[in-house]
């Protein structure tokens, strides 16, 4: 009975957290899906999103959610810049080159961030209230974050399937050479895709900052979760990443009801390896 009560209390919380995990993973998997690049700068970009919220709330004194749209735009532009400077020249090189290029960006952001912001924890002291349903406490910040995630997921779906640039992205992801033959400017589309992936990472960071204290290194954990989610949701399938995020969030809610919380990463990453062995393209990925 105690376990059941714990499950009731922790599961909704885990699911709400899973939305934001999914949003972060969507960015990683979108970039992989379109250009086969693993963005190792994903974590620091999430951390920059966190600091942006801190700046909006603590320095400008504004509601942290007012910063989401400007942070998204800045994330988009920053991603396009990273693509132009670090990724474009190695886009056709072996995977190791793009991996090293994004790793270099990762190290540059962490180095500059550490020098400017240190690695001390920062805290966005913002409470959006809570909703008490029996033994379950739903935090306002997590409910809002889940709602914002749904908005961005819907927006991404609409963009990819209903707009011309979105269709171009899908065409380039499907077959870049054929897309170029059809007159699609693939370089611009790749830069846009990288920008979108970065935008999603920055927005997820902006939302996570309202839950937990953070520093410039905090994005690393969410980057690792994004890999697990990418595998759960299907590599290269951004909408599947949302479901992957929800599954991971649920696991984080369920496991502590039965085991010590320190078992959570063990089971998460065990699952990661198991799925890679059984379905290398991910749980919801297409079979080869």
């Amino acid at each position, binding site marked *: 009975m105690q376990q059941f009560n714990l499950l009731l209390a922790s599961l909704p*919380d885990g699911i709400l957290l899973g939305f934001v995990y999914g949003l972060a993973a969507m960015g990683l998997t979108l970039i992989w899906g379109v250009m086969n690049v693993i963005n190792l700068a994903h974590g620091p970009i999430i951390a920059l999103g966190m600091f942006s919220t801190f700046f909006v709330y603590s320095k400008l004194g504004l509601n942290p959610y007012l910063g989401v749209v400007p942070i998204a735009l800045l994330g988009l532009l920053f991603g396009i810049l990273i693509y132009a400077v670090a990724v474009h020249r190695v886009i056709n090189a072996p995977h190791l080159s793009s991996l090293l290029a994004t790793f270099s960006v990762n190290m540059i952001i962490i180095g500059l961030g550490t020098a400017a912001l240190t690695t001390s924890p920062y805290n966005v002291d913002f409470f959006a209230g809570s909703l008490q349903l029996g033994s379950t406490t739903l935090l306002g910040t997590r409910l809002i974050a889940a709602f914002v995630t749904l908005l961005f997921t819907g927006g991404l779906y609409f963009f990819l399937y209903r707009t011309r640039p979105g269709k171009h992205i899908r065409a380039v992801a499907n077959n870049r050479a054929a897309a170029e033959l059809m007159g699609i400017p693939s370089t611009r589309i790749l830069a846009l895709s990288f920008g979108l992936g970065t935008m999603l990472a920055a927005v997820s960071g902006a939302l996570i900052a309202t*839950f937990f204290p953070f520093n410039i290194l905090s994005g690393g954990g969410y980057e690792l979760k994004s890999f697990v989610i990418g595998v759960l949701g299907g590599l290269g399938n951004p909408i599947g990443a949302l479901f992957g995020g929800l599954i991971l969030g649920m696991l*984080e809610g369920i496991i502590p009801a039965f085991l010590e919380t320190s078992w959570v990463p063990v089971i998460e990453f065990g699952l990661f390896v198991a799925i890679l062995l059984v379905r290398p393209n991910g749980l919801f990925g297409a079979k080869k």
Partner: protein
Amino acid sequence: MNRKLSILVTFFALASLVLAACAPGSVEAPPVADGSDTEKTVVIGFTSSLTGAQEVSSKRQVNGLTLWMNQVNAAGGIHLSDGTVVKFTAQTYDDESNKERVQELYTRLITEDNADFLISPYSSGLTAAASIIAEQNGKIMITAGAAEDDAYKTGNTSLFQLYTPGSQYLLSTVDMLKTLDPSARVAIVHENDKFSTSVVEGLKPYLESQGFEVVLEEGYASDTTDFGPVINKIVESGATVLLGGGHYPDGSTFARQLYERKAGLKFISLLVAPADSKFPELGEAALGVSTSSQWELSATHTPEEAAALGKEWYGPSGQEFADAYLALTGDKPTYHAAGGYLTGLILQKAIEAADSVDPDKVRAALEALDIFTFYGGIKFDTRAEAHGLQIGHEMVVAQWQRNDAGELVRQVIWPANVATAAPLYPIPMP
């Protein structure tokens, strides 16, 4: 061609000679021949966590040590009876809160930088890594920010612990709870690391011996950010008191989420995090959270206390230390800063007592040390099975409360004879 080659070779040979002549440290300074004192510069080697998980507390520890070094050098150093004037210089690196890096760097400090004495990095985990290197090389290491007991129970002879050992960390909190609420139901939730685990190893049997019911015992990973499931477990267990935590990053996150989720606990004591001056950045979530503290300015130790105990008083008063620290850093000192200062002060006292910087003589002086400072008593266990363990120092319990101006301040609430305020019990519900 041959002429050009010989010109080139001659140029490089001359350049090498010039560079060799200019190289620092390549020529020893000539001894002072005018009859005045000989100056000896002692190299203090240590690493600090300028980055990573231990950054906050580590920087404060180093600030304290830097203050001591500035003061002792500015005062003209330590004068030995043979006319030697001992001054100090620091050799330090950023360990990035990383154990592997700590071992590399302490090896470098000993073998390349020729450090005479070592100070530990901050945290028990990093110190355990550094202590192996210090012990292998027979270098004296004074440890601060390293409360875990085990490192001193493995036959080491070069480590000297400043902090009250981890196994005794929360015992005074239990004594206080016994007077406040003997029927409290206790949840122990702690970081899974060396220090916090050693605290719990001492805490749990003591709680049970005092008749408290431990309704939950749970560890969490050091990088945990979501404490929601743990807090649900605490609430479900029916606990009224929470004892635990770990270090600053996890402790501050834990405290914030306990407040957000209205965990309804009557008393919360977390390790390390609430002792830091950054903790009130949590706002209302900081109110009522308490911690075991190695030192608090408001309950600083005094020469009168030392005299009453028949101990030798040594060093500045707590207020003098706090004023100097404030002037140096612009910040109020925490116990981590005081700990850093004390590592230097203890070494100074040992060198004075040994009248030498010879490591064996300084080691013997440290073993014989039994003094009282603004930080409290300092005495090391000399038994082979616990050599270097701190046995002279006691802790206080501090709690964040609001003062008359409505500001969050850390008040000492136990022991009663040094308390500056009554315990806030139960903590007001959010």
